[in-house]
């Protein structure tokens, strides 16, 4: 296995041959859908008249709530999310009906002819309005430790502050898409751009009023997901399925960009208020933090998003007394949802805000105050336990931090920068180093399981199925690597299959940075089961027909079935190994050959062993299953051991800010991130760089604005600005952290999840901008809005200059 493995679909990507949901060969009679959108953020629906639209050429149906044969609900946690509302509009642009026509253009034209009567109602259009109206989803959540009131009272210093953090559109390049059809057996066949095919399957069954076994959901690949297709692919699968169900013809939905941005939820905006107590050195004593997430009109995934924010507000810092309260504002906006980091980024931005305010209040270097407050192993009294009761296992952060400080020449550059700032009244440079500690595992414990199905055909070729979806993150590439390494064969023998609910059932969303951890172990378990079945047969063949073999075998990559005892669940391997001859345990599968450990010169071809196994009437198909060990979480108490382990990283960023315009440029970035023992370094690097830039966009140029009626004004890339290549510095240094101590956990091949954590490295951009703004004056507080657009930075400078 090459660690420099590039993406398994790379050739398909560059040649245009890689097929996405809306690019399949169209079946005869394929229909297209287009929504009828409400022109109010909050309204009562008085009447829907579809007659004129239905009379138009090419129109086959106009779907409304009344057409739903099953349950009109898609809520993943709370049942509050109608596919189409029966009587109430809950946000501007909400789809109240869907037109089904021969062409998209016809559907679009007919949608304009659907007459809907509304009675407009007052709307809550931001988190402040919801707080004032006490409009919340669900009761407040709490996570706490110690006695915060006493801690604050006893602290040498106290300060309070608040911060509004803006949301973020996912801006996956491929908008939401689903094709649905009814097959020969009356089953609903879906091809959806979904991160969670099992849930899409279940939701469609629920909406149609049929059992899940009558729905198959496949995901070919996604043109980006980032959390935006975790639950929010479901509405579009549901209406496509409903259209197919009603008309008997295949139907497709592919949203135009503006529709996608108007209809789907985003990263939650958060409003935070905090009071923190600390000593003269900036050591935190106590913190009371109130977080309000803007959930939008329905609950969706807001509770676990909020909870992840609440258990990441500490970021890398030990606080003896903590009280975090969290609420979900109910507003008349699109329902906010999962987005890379899942609330963690918002929590950590608040945490870093607190650290900066404490340091500037005391006039201490911010980097030193950060470092001083780190979780650390081996301190008395203990400083390594989080406020939710889980120790920071394998805490490599202090070591990583020290390495990055040195490699980035932080101290030297700090001195140079101060000199620059003294000489330039209208241009200031800022420098910041920030850490990332991110818990890996779904907060919802039951999601931490995965399955795989590995099929070996009698010619020695292999089909690999697992429950994860491919959205560009390279999961399939890693799974191919895991299967090839475990089976001891080349990747060219293995065909990765599209994700399908009829191959692996009851899968979890590909999310929470866990795709590789969970599915990798399941794939490995399935492969080990197969090896254990083939090993006795190979042993017998080698005993009877010891074949001379000229090709030498390198030691690297040797694999004996069941030799990796740390594998948590491979019972099949051990049983069959015992049952066979002792030699079975010594059979090695490597480099497409099979041989006895002591006699590598006598080897069999992998495909010959497969053929012998088939002839011996032994199954060549196996499922694999994995569940993450040792997890527990009590959401009511906000305590437990929700994460299997933590991912660590740190970033140093340097910016220059123009005092006249507020425009900033990012001059240099140094990232050091912990991916454990990488399964595919190019893939992991891609996640680090891409996550960082996506986080940078969230914190700088990506600004969502709505008008007074609740209509999203920034619903296109002309108005919503994700980073371009021009925003990425030439000087962009990325390194993978090499840990000095082995981990105490057993993640697949000792790797670490990498999907989300690097996004939060971008907090260093925000803090570097703040550092530059601070240089325009002598303020003890630098208030900086998020996102830090040129306008926001300009206002921050004006404030600092006036202070």
């Amino acid at each position, binding site marked *: 296995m090459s660690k420099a493995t590039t993406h398994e679909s790379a050739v398909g990507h560059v040649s245009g041959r890689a097929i996405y949901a809306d690019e399949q060969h169209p079946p005869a009679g394929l229909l297209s859908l287009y929504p009828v959108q409400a022109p109010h953020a909050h309204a009562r629906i008085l009447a829907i008249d579809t007659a004129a639209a239905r009379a138009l050429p090419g129109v086959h149906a106009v779907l409304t709530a009344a057409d739903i044969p099953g349950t009109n609900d898609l809520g993943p946690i709370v049942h509050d999310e109608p596919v189409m509302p029966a009587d109430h509009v809950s946000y501007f642009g909400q789809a109240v009906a869907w037109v089904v026509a021969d062409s998209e253009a016809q559907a679009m034209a007919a949608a304009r002819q659907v007459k809907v009567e509304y009675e407009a109602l007052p709307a809550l259009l931001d988190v402040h309005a919801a707080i004032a109206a006490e409009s919340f989803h669900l009761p407040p959540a709490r996570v706490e430790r110690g006695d915060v009131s006493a801690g604050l009272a006893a602290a040498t210093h106290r300060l309070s502050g608040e911060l509004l953090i803006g949301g973020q559109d996912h801006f996956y390049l491929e908008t939401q898409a689903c094709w649905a059809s009814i097959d020969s057996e009356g089953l609903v066949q879906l091809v959806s751009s979904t991160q969670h095919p099992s849930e899409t399957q279940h939701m469609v069954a629920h909406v149609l009023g049929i059992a899940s076994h009558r729905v198959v959901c496949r995901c070919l690949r*996604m043109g*980006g997901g980032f959390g935006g297709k975790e639950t929010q692919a479901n509405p579009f699968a549901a209406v496509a399925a409903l259209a197919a169900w009603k008309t008997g013809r295949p139907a497709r939905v592919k949203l135009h960009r503006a529709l996608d941005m108007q209809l789907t939820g985003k990263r939650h905006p958060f409003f935070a208020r905090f009071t923190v107590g600390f000593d003269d050195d900036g050591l935190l004593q106590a913190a009371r933090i109130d977080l309000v997430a803007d959930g939008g009109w329905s609950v969706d995934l807001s509770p676990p998003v909020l909870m992840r924010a609440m258990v990441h507000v500490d970021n890398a810092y030990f606080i003896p007394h903590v009280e975090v309260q969290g609420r979900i504002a109910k507003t008349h906006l699109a329902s906010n949802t999962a987005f890379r980091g899942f609330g963690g980024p918002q929590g950590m931005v608040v945490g870093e805000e607190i650290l900066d305010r404490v340091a500037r209040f005391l006039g201490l270097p911010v980097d030193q105050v950060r470092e001083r407050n780190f979780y650390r192993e081996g301190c008395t009294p203990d400083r390594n336990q989080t406020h939710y009761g889980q120790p920071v296992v394998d805490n490599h952060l202090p070591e990583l931090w020290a390495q990055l400080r040195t490699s980035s020449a932080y101290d030297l550059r700090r001195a140079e920068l101060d000199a620059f700032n003294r000489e330039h009244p209208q241009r200031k440079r800022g420098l910041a180093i920030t850490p990332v500690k991110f818990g890996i595992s779904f907060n919802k414990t039951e999601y931490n399981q995965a399955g795989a199905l590995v099929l070996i055909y009698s010619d020695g070729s292999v089909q690999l199925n697992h429950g994860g979806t491919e959205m*560009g993150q390279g999961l399939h590439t890693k799974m191919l690597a895991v299967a090839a390494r475990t089976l001891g064969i080349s990747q060219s023998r293995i065909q990765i299959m599209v994700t399908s609910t009829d191959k692996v059932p009851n899968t979890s969303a590909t999310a929470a940075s866990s795709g590789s951890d969970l599915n990798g172990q399941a794939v490995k378990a399935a492969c080990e089961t197969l090896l254990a079945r083939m090993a006795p047969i190979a042993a017998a063949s080698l005993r009877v027909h010891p074949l001379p073999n000229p090709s030498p075998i390198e030691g690297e990559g040797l694999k004996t079935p069941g030799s990796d005892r740390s594998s948590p669940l491979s019972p099949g391997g051990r049983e069959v190994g015992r049952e066979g001859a002792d030699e079975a345990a010594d059979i090695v599968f490597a480099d497409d050959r099979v041989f006895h450990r002591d006699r590598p010169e006598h080897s069999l071809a992998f495909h010959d062993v497969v053929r012998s196994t088939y002839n011996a009437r032994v199954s060549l198909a196996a499922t694999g299953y994995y569940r993450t060990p040792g997890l527990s979480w009590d959401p009511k108490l906000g305590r437990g051991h929700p994460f299997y382990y933590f991912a660590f990283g740190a970033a140093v960023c340097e910016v220059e800010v123009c005092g006249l315009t507020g425009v900033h440029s990012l001059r240099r970035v140094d990232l050091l991130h912990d991916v454990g023992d990488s399964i595919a370094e190019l893939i992991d690097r891609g996640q680090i760089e891409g996550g960082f830039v996506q986080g940078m966009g969230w914190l700088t*140029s990506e600004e969502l604005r709505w008008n007074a009626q609740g209509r999203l004004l920034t619903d296109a890339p002309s108005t919503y600005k994700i980073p371009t290549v021009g925003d990425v510095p030439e000087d962009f240094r990325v390194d993978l952290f090499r840990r000095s101590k082995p981990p105490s956990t057993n993640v697949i091949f000792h790797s670490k999840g990498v999907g989300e954590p690097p996004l939060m490295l971008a907090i260093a951009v925000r803090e570097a901008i703040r550092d530059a703004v601070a240089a325009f004056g002598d303020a003890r507080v630098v208030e900086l809005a998020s996102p830090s657009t040129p306008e926001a930075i300009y206002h921050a400078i004006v404030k600092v200059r006036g202070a």
Partner: protein
Amino acid sequence: MTSSTSFTLNGKPVDLAGADPTQSLLRWLRGQRLTGTKEGCGDGDCGACTVAMVETDGAGRAQYRAVNSCLLPVGALPGREVVTVEALAEGDRLHPAQQVLVDGAGSQCGYCTPGFVMSLFVGSHDGDLSDHCIEGNLCRCTGYRPIRDAARRLAAQPVVEDRFHQALAEPRAALATSALGAFHNPTTLAEALALKQQLPQASWIAGATDLGVNLSRGQPVAPAFIALDRIAELQQLEIGEHAVRIGAGVPLSRLEQELAGLFPLLDDMLPWFAAKQVKNRATFGGGLGSASPIGDLAPILLALDGDVHLLGPNGARDVPAAAFFLDYRLTARSEDELIVAVTLPRRAGLVTASYKVAKRQTDDISIVAASFALALDGERRVQQVRLAYGGVAATPRRALRTETLLHGQVLGDAVVEQARASLAEEFTPLSDHRADADYRRALAGNLFVKFVAEKLA
């Protein structure tokens, strides 16, 4: 078999007869099952739909140009040549523009990738593989580092004379007059004006980088179109000793190249005006014709006291820049007139600069755009001053009050501060999704301070 309604797609003629001329090339391609070209936005802002189109320059040389196929109406295609991502590889042998992305892990989800491939393909032909080559391509996965590196590796490779180079070298006739349905492609000004007389409801359409957005969004624009992008008279660029006359139909990428060094105002602005795919189609004339209140080039025209040359059924007339912009989306051009050219005078002794502030510094629409032109005498007394802005009023506008205030004054700190305060009060801009009014007002003054500090210190 070629006809007047056919175009060349990946080396083969394709007849478009019967196709909807207002449909975008992108949607048409996907309808033909050429799905390598992707729709990321349909607004010309993401580059996922980038294709290469052959353009012949003034000297008759053919070149590949990267264009957004989502903004290109099918009606504009007859006689043209287009290359899409599907044509690049020969069987399993990838084109170098593809191979460098594979080798450098330049794709993750892959949806933006064909667009990058086409930008790199064009860049490998025209020699620009800098960031500007790929600035018009959005990627949400990679963070661009591997794509930028791939572009550099491609730039370092020796050019191989392949079938694409050979295809370019073949002689080409000028594009012929054609029509696809109600989409008319005249080749002379006389034809264009005559068509407008016959079809008074028809809309002029130049590079389609503005109207193409409306068409792509399915919004009704006009019952007929008269395209201006193959009229040779509009493609001329005359560089004189005292002035430069810019044909209204010259794509901005040509201005950027061929006028480089002549006008600092253009040199400052064009790199940030828009992405390459847009600049390859957008024109000075089109920008003035659409009368956007921002229009990054309009302030330049105002700052240099340029002229707009119009031609209509009643003949030709010249309108000074100062008299061209009348009100929101309203100019001195009457509906049946065409902008044929603008003239920018070349004056010695002027210190000039353009500034653009946007939410994102590359490929964004300005919050405020400003163009300044100032002449000082030996005592730093202001002899001439033009302070022109976009984004602060219903039209691009000069700050006449502040110009008067500055005229004849010695440009010292106090005067600059007076001017800044005056500029901040001179306009009453709007608050919108790009920025609030007070920030725009502050920028109006501060950009002048920046200009003085950077160019007149």
